[in-house]
């Protein structure tokens, strides 16, 4: 039993280690507390013995003085025990949460696609808390109970070995009962949790499917289903209550039993003159004060079970190696190539022509979850050129673009930037060269200023406004109540899809990147605004390498090279004019576009 206990606690050690010094001090304070704790019933006992013999009032005052003194000392140590031991758990929680966050921020996009945000959140909050409870109250209460009992036994055995034996013979019984209850309760508790998620899922489903339910007038059926689940939830709770409701009463009876034992056996010893009435009282007081720490043991068992289970779940995250990480010996990138690395005055302005970077795909094949997404991509984009990618949904356009900043990893030796495999750059350096506008715009609930300046270390108000102007967001910003200081998202105003996209564009161009990637970044922007943005972008793009993904011909017709992707392969390539002549997909797309425009005007 001891061995398995150690095995299960072992994963905790690395987390405890940094605090070993403070744990030591905390335990010392604990020992100090117990030392004075032990004295209190002794003083009371002696006092009563002397009362029986008829002491002087002075001596009585002495006992009272001693009692108060001991209690004050005990309180002092108790204060520090709690401050130190519980304090450690809060510090450990702080460290653990930071570490967890840092670790998560190193994991790749694929990881976040596979793990639900809700699940990760619950680990960072609920599981972390369970571990904290184990590190703090768990350790404090178990250590305290252990030390208290040792000290109490040591003292009581001197008063009466027999009585001590009979009193503490119950302790193993308590331990067995507590651990039995712990297991039973844990199992039932999990059943309830499972039912709770079923119930949540049901509500989720009903709310999401409310239109269908109403359209078919199925409210009653749905209520009935919910009722069944609700009743099952109550039933499972009943099973827990049946056991759990017994736990504390049972413990209290056991504790009461020690009083009974003291009264019965101790009383007989007093009558036979083996122990004094004072010792009898001291026994009573000791047992009274041990009751709660022993009950707390039961609670500690629960803390311990949940804590270790949660720790295992946290370790799962910590054990995940980042799929995409820095190479062991990264290529050194000169400051020339870093868009935003240069602090202060070295910061290039947005308009200043930048040296683009050559991008080369060498016979690249890429599969995701076993499905081939890209096939034999052979493509070179000379530095400073603009490439446009078109093609039906699911043809691999976005995937192709996301390989460049290594959101996903291309196979080694297939993707080169300025002749260097992307895998040989430090991630930081690689991503600093790139301004990326993803297909799904993600803004943070921060000010518009904060969102636009998100990708740079520092930016002047002027630069931010300039970026917003290029992205055609400035007129909108001026309409907002607080201008650039307006908060967007949950806590602020809601931006339209087009406004979000334009903010994302401003965010990318403020980085003044060597490579600008727009992944269908103008889809929610109307054609008129798009035209304005494109005209300004053309200026910005001078010298930079750019990749534009779009469904609209108007966005891409001026690109140096246009490729059509179909089922992951390049099926057509050329300039706008060339493709109109030779292509098949592209001219159709163009025709369609013209019709759309006509329709727009109808």
């Amino acid at each position, binding site marked *: 039993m001891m061995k398995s206990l150690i095995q299960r606690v072992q994963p905790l050690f690395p987390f405890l280690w940094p605090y070993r010094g403070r744990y030591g001090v905390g335990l010392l304070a604990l020992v100090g507390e117990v030392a004075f704790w032990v004295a209190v019933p002794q003083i*009371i006992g002696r006092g*009563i013995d002397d009362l*029986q013999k*008829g002491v002087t009032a002075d001596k009585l005052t002495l006992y009272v003085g001693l009692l*108060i003194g001991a*209690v*004050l000392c005990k*309180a002092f140590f108790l*204060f*520090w025990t709690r401050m130190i031991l519980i*304090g450690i758990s809060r510090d450990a929680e702080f460290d653990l949460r*930071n570490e967890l*966050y840092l670790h998560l*921020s190193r994991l790749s*996009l694929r990881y976040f696609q596979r793990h639900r945000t809700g699940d990760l*959140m619950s680990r960072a*909050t609920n599981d972390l808390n369970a571990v904290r409870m184990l590190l703090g109250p768990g350790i404090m209460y178990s250590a305290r109970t252990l030390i208290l009992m040792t000290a109490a036994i040591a003292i009581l055995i001197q008063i009466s070995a027999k009585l001590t034996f009979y009193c503490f013979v119950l302790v193993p019984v308590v331990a067995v009962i507590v651990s039995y209850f712990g297991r039973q309760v844990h199992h039932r508790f999990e059943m309830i949790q499972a039912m*709770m998620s079923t119930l*949540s899922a049901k*509500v989720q*489903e*009903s*709310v999401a499917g*409310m*239109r269908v339910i*109403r359209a*078919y*007038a*199925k409210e009653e059926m749905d209520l009935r*289903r*919910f009722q069944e689940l*609700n009743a099952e939830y109550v039933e499972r*709770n*009943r099973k827990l*209550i*049946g056991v759990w409701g017994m736990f504390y009463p049972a413990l*209290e*009876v056991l504790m*009461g039993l020690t*009083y*009974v034992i003291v*009264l*019965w056996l101790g009383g007989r010893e007093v009558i036979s003159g083996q122990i004094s*009435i004072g010792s009898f009282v001291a026994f009573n007081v000791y047992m009274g*004060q041990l009751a709660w720490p022993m009950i707390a043991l039961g609670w500690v068992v629960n803390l311990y079970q949940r804590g270790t289970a949660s720790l295992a779940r946290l370790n799962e995250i910590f054990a995940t190696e980042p799929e995409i990480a820095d190479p062991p010996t990264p290529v050194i990138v000169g400051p020339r190539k870093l868009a*935003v690395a240069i602090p202060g005055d070295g910061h290039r302005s947005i308009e200043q022509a930048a040296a683009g970077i050559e991008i080369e795909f060498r016979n690249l094949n890429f599969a995701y979850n076993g499905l081939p997404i890209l096939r034999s991509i052979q493509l070179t984009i000379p530095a400073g050129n603009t490439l446009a990618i078109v093609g039906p*949904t699911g043809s691999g356009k976005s995937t192709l673009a996301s390989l460049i900043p290594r*959101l996903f990893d291309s196979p080694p030796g297939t993707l080169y930037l300025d002749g260097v495999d992307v895998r040989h750059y430090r991630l930081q350096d690689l*991503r600093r060269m790139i301004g990326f506008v*993803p297909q799904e715009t*993600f803004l943070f609930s921060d000010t518009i200023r904060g969102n636009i300046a*998100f*990708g740079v270390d520092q930016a002047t108000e002027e630069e931010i406004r300039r970026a917003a102007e290029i992205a055609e967001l400035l007129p909108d910003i001026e309409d907002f109540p607080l201008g650039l200081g307006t908060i967007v998202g949950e*806590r602020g105003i809601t931006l339209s899809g087009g406004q979000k996209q334009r903010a994302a564009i401003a965010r990318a161009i403020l980085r003044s990147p060597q490579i600008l990637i727009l992944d269908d970044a103008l889809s929610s922007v109307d054609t008129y605004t798009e035209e304005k943005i494109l005209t300004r972008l053309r200026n910005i793009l001078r010298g930079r390498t750019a990749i534009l993904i779009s469904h609209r011909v108007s966005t891409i017709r001026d690109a140096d090279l246009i490729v059509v992707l179909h089922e992951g392969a390049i099926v057509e390539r050329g300039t706008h004019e060339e493709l109109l002549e030779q292509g098949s997909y592209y001219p159709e797309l163009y*025709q*369609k576009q013209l*019709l759309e425009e*006509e*329709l727009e005007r*109808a």
Partner: protein
Amino acid sequence: MTQDHHEEEVLGKAYDSRLMRRLLHYLAPYRGIVALASATMILHSLLQVVGPFLTKIAVDRYLVVTHRQPTFLDSFLSADPAIGLAQITGLYLLALLALFALEYGQTYTMQMVGQRAMYDLRMEIFGHLHRLPIQFYDRNPVGRLVTRVTTDVDVINEMFTSGVVAIFGDFFSLLFIVIVMLQLNATLALVTFAVLPLIFVATMLFRRRVRDCYRRIRTAVARINAHLQEHLTGMSVVQLFNREEKSFAEFKKINAAHQKAFLDSVFAHSLFYPAVEVLSSAAIALILWYGGHQVLGEMLTIGVLVAFIQYAQRFFRPIQDLSEKYNILQSAMASSERIFKLLDTPAGREPSQELAGASAPREATRGIEFQDVWFAYHDQDWVLQDVQLSIEPGETIAIVGHTGAGKTTLISLLLRFYDVQKGRILVDGVDVRDWNVRALRRRLGVVLQDPFLFSGTIESNIRLDEEAVTREAMEEAVEELNIEDFIRALPEGYRQEVYERGATLSVGQKQLISFARALAHNPQILILDEATSSVDTETEFRVREALNRMISGRTAIIIAHRLSTIQRADRIVVFHKGRIREIGSHQQLLAQRGIYWKLYQLQYKQQEVSVTGDD
């Protein structure tokens, strides 16, 4: 689920009598059991004082023989110390067993009452959700509503079962201890109570301090959750823009605020617990000192002194407990406030059932009529403008138009998910606002744009647990749709399990199932909103065949992106930017070379280049 923690969590006081009264209302149906449990609890508290009292008698009668007033027990007790002690011990044991039975009984019944009351509350909230207008769902994220039904209710349950009950229990324990102490020796009892004001002061100070801490903690927890939620969702953006360090720094700051708030509360607790212990020991010291003097003056027996010491030890635990319950109470108040806010959201404008003259299905169907219909989701942003359309019984109408033309809105209005701002919609000559909503909806068989499937089986998704829809009707619908091979191809056929939101099925398959669902319900009016947009061409061809047979004899409204689906309709209505722009047959409209013609061209191109999701 967690975004909404943000500001909401922070509110709330510890006790609000208005909320509490309303909460207690949920216990009303169980008042008999509650009364029983309360009586049990009082009895339990009463029995708790028995132990020290028995100890006192044992001490005074047998251990330190003292002259004193005999109690009623003395007449039953043996004169022989050994037998007498055994008798008292036996009584003690009996009391313990009774205590166990009472406490277990009380806990069990009270917790079950809590469970049942919460069951009722959950049913009420869920039922209310079904009555709220559809607009409500446009505004409120799903996660928030789920929290109301689940987590918030559980927090209240926690208060009912452990919080409030424990407070009452503690109160009675205190009361009985006080009474017994006063009985045993009034002056010594009063001397002991001298520490009480100090305890109250300490508790008040502590409470004030932790209240602030808890408020800060809740704010910090909400911030941590919001930050995590946001940055976990947007992690790739963080990485793309090299903001890992910056976002970590932000997180660390929030995390530090959380830590600081907790350390402050640790400090408050660390101070409070020793303070209470010092005070409770001070009470014992007072007993020893004052009582000791009385013992010396032979005005008090040692037994009473011992009993007082035991009582004093028990006296302070309930007081300490009270402050612990404070947090539970506060959370429960916050949760109930949120729940009641939801329950107080007015339900949809349901016409009184008794306008039933209109609600009874009419024999003579008189078709559907849209008269000068105007509708906007927000203020004056008209989604539909001046829509005039009358659909004859048995007629098939196709509605086409570009994305955002208002086609789906038209259906939502017909189903009365929303009410029109101007004009009216008549079904069988009766304004939809005068219809019993459910009767109206039963009349319409709808396949909505998003083919929503429930978790269950294929069968339960088609029949929707409707008695009237027999197995035969279901199989007939599937046969009529020509899709029985698809269902037979599934390992379990009709019993094939469907997961949440139909996760394992393709969109096309889901559309077919929801199509079968509509058909099986045998509606008088059939409405298809993009019903076959995602099925493959071959399947669609078969479905279309079936459709042509089905719509004969029924009034039907078909919305379709694929114009091929609708060429057989009696009339085609072209919507553009919220208005009806063209009405006529396929050939007529093509000849007009207007919007329909352009749409048709566009469609044709689209199919040629096989762009699927681009709309």
